[in-house]
């Protein structure tokens, strides 16, 4: 086990990075606190790595990881974690899949043992694949088909991206989910579930020496394997606005605008996130205030900036109030954005965004699980935690003129794709 670095986080806490000879990365954040740990395994594989016609395999495979291994009968993994007073779960997104466990500190060795087995000794049989496929189809109904926000989000990415795999939904299409075979899942496991494609993140109350000893014991024997280089097509620049609309059983029109945005690694990413918060982040944000409180033409208005490995989207979503059209709302939104591009805000105005970000930063680090998740996300995408640990410093350096430049650079109609859900009885004109 080789010690790579120690990075100060906050207060007396530091993140220690190690590497095993088989390439497994280990990040430890020990602290005195409640007698619990968060143990997470991040695999650098997500829906971006899927083959055409097999969308959803990364997520379906995540479901299959909770079954049997060579030494664990089916259902034993979950039961053993719960018997120890722990919780286990997982998530898949475009760039990663991660497996999280929260467990009392006294059970850490047990967990390391179990998790190492899943990485190398998983067994998947047809009945499990069949059952989990049904579960995933139900999950899709829950998150997409019967959820208007999930439906619109899927349609937005389908529209905004023409060649990059981000255009495919992480949960997969129904046809693709139904086409996945045992051979597919076996190949997927062997290709991507290897120590040299994984990062272990451990946060909480534990002994560093013991943790390293156990990780070395249980993972050290696992062989590394060649991991395919990502060959997903680069998305070409967008040169014109794109729009789609759908009629759905909704009571009010809903819309998402998605502007092409930089990757998490890009120097603009943090500032663009702060721009979003400044404009849309709450009742005193200028565009929120104008559209929601003053004009009352939308009943909800949110923004989000994707934290992806490759360029993603800066999304603005709104629910339109009865009596107003998408065109009116969009026109006012764009006017407000254009006004911002012309008017340089003061340092004091920007300070409120900085204060909100700082508060949000600390709020996101209260539990062991939150700490581990933040560390895992940054490291799996960037291979580096300093953009996280340095956040309080970095955000202080952002200036009003930077936000203005970013608005001019990124928030242009030619960079925008939008999707609209209209109530079934609407006779609104289609925007072109």
């Amino acid at each position: 086990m080789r010690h790579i670095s120690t990075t100060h986080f906050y207060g007396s806490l530091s993140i220690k990075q190690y590497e095993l000879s088989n390439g497994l990365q280990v990040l430890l954040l020990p602290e005195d606190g409640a007698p619990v740990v968060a143990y997470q395994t991040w695999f650098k594989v997500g829906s971006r790595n899927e083959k055409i016609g097999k969308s959803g395999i990364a997520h379906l495979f995540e479901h299959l990881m909770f079954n049997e291994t060579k030494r664990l009968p089916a259902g034993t993994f979950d039961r053993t974690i719960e018997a120890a007073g722990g919780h286990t779960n997982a998530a898949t997104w475009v760039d990663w899949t991660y497996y999280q466990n929260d467990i009392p500190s006294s059970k850490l060795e047990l967990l390391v043992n179990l998790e190492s087995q899943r990485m190398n000794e998983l067994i998947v049989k047809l009945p499990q694949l069949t059952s989990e496929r049904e579960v995933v189809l139900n999950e899709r109904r829950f998150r997409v088909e019967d959820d208007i926000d999930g439906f619109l989000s899927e349609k937005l990415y389908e529209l905004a991206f023409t060649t990059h795999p981000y255009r495919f939904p992480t949960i997969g299409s129904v046809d693709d989910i139904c086409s996945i075979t045992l051979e597919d899942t076996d190949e997927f496991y062997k290709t991507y579930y290897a120590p040299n494609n994984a990062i272990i993140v451990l946060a909480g109350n534990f002994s560093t020496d013991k943790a390293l000893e156990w990780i070395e014991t249980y993972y050290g024997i696992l062989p590394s394997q060649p991991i395919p280089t990502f060959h997903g097509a680069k998305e070409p620049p967008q040169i014109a606005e794109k729009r789609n609309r759908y009629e759905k059983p909704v009571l009010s029109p809903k819309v998402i605008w998605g502007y092409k945005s930089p990757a998490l690694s890009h120097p603009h990413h943090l500032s663009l996130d702060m721009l979003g918060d400044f404009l849309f982040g709450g009742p005193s944000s200028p565009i929120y205030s104008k559209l929601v409180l003053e004009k009352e033409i939308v009943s909800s208005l949110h923004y989000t900036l994707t934290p992806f490995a490759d360029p993603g989207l800066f999304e603005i979503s709104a629910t339109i109030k009865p009596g107003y059209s998408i065109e009116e709302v969009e026109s006012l939104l764009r006017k407000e954005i254009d006004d911002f591009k012309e008017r340089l805000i003061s340092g004091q105005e920007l300070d409120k965004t900085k204060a909100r970000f700082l508060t949000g930063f600390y709020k996101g680090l209260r539990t062991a699980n939150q700490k581990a998740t933040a560390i895992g996300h940054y490291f799996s995408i960037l291979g580096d935690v300093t953009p996280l640990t340095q956040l309080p410093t970095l955000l202080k350096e952002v200036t009003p003129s930077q936000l203005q430049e970013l608005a001019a650079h990124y928030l242009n109609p030619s960079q925008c794709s939008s999707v609209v859900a209209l109530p079934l009885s609407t006779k609104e004109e289609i925007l072109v």
Partner: protein
Amino acid sequence: MQLSSCTTFIYKGGNPRMNTYFPENSLSKKIICVEDHVLPLCRIQVVLKAGNLLDISFDRAGLSSYTTELMRRSANGHSYIDLERALNQIGAKIKIFVDGDKTIFDLSVLKEYLTPALSIFTDIITKPDFSEIESDRLKRKWLANLENNREDDSFLVNRFFWRNLYGNHPYGFPTTGTEESISRFSPLHAMDWYKNNVYQENTLLGIAGDLSTEESISIYESVISKLPKNKFVSSEDSVLSQKFPVVPGCRVILVDKPERTQSQILVGQFGVGFSDPNWLPLHVGITAFGGTFTARLMREVRVKRGLSYGATAHATSPKGQGAIVMHAFPASEQTGETLELLLELHKELYEKGLTDEEISFAKNYLAESHAFQIQTAEQKLRFKTKLTLCGMPVSLVEKWPEQILALSNDTIKHVLSKYLSPKDLLITIVGTADLLQGQIRTISTLKNVPLKILPYTKDE
């Protein structure tokens, strides 16, 4: 106000960063303080021992929330935008939480901005303006929110289930009202509510984070002590003590929403309140049945049959009478099959109970996982507040695992058989009626039960 003495209590199990103080004076029942100085975050809560139990009739549903939200929106001559700008400038947030038993005014802020945040917080609680303009805006916002929320099937099934379970008891009323009730509210109603319910004896101060005991007392003096004093009259007692007789027979409420590919199902009945000695054994028993991923319910519904992404059961824990509820969300065409399975499992639980292995597993799980329920200062505060409001000793926070492990398997089995009532269940389903009616009627135990179909766009 000085401390005559104070007790420092360290969480058993070695969490030395977190100290809980119980001042040995009249404030001991008025302040709960859980210190944690690792992060520079402060959480301050003024807890009113009054929630939407005070919305005494359905046409007043949401009045408690309306009043407290209106307090939030204008105070000491400042409008909502003024207050928001001031809070945002320092990264602070003030939120209001209302449930059946309590109302919480919640302030979260970085330590360095505590003073200005506290000033705004104090104004909101002690000098609300009850502005007509803000009232109109709030009502319009709520009506729009209600419409938006009706897009959410989980929201709908809960709304209709609780309303039909509790009937005309406020526990079943929607916390943020209905289209009809919201339209009727005025600042005069809010002022009346405020006068009757916001006074010193009816409040509790909760502190968590980067604050000391001395600071807590100072906050009490600057916020709570500014409220009027009043002889505490529990206006909730008669409502809280109300017990609900079992409504004989099963009932089905079908909330009709078009183009659903999936249904949301809640099946439930009455249970007991949090301070009832039977609550904890009931909680353990229901956890064994459906409270974890490997429990019987999830195993049968999801793992074996793939019928639903999730299948859970839990016992609610209000001050008054609680409920026992099962939840699943299958594909529309599998709704009948899933519902029939839920009813069979419930009946089997009643008739045959749990195995000793299941009970022991649940006890151990709840005892061992308790550390996660009180991992942070805020979580600990939440638990202590709940205990205090229910008149239970706060020492139970640390003794909770012992209490669980001390329960005998026979006690748990007995409580389950006492309270479960498979012939008298309320079933609420959100889905597309045309697809579901026939499926429901094929279930033998539901062939002749009353089935009411309601539109998802309106409350009854």
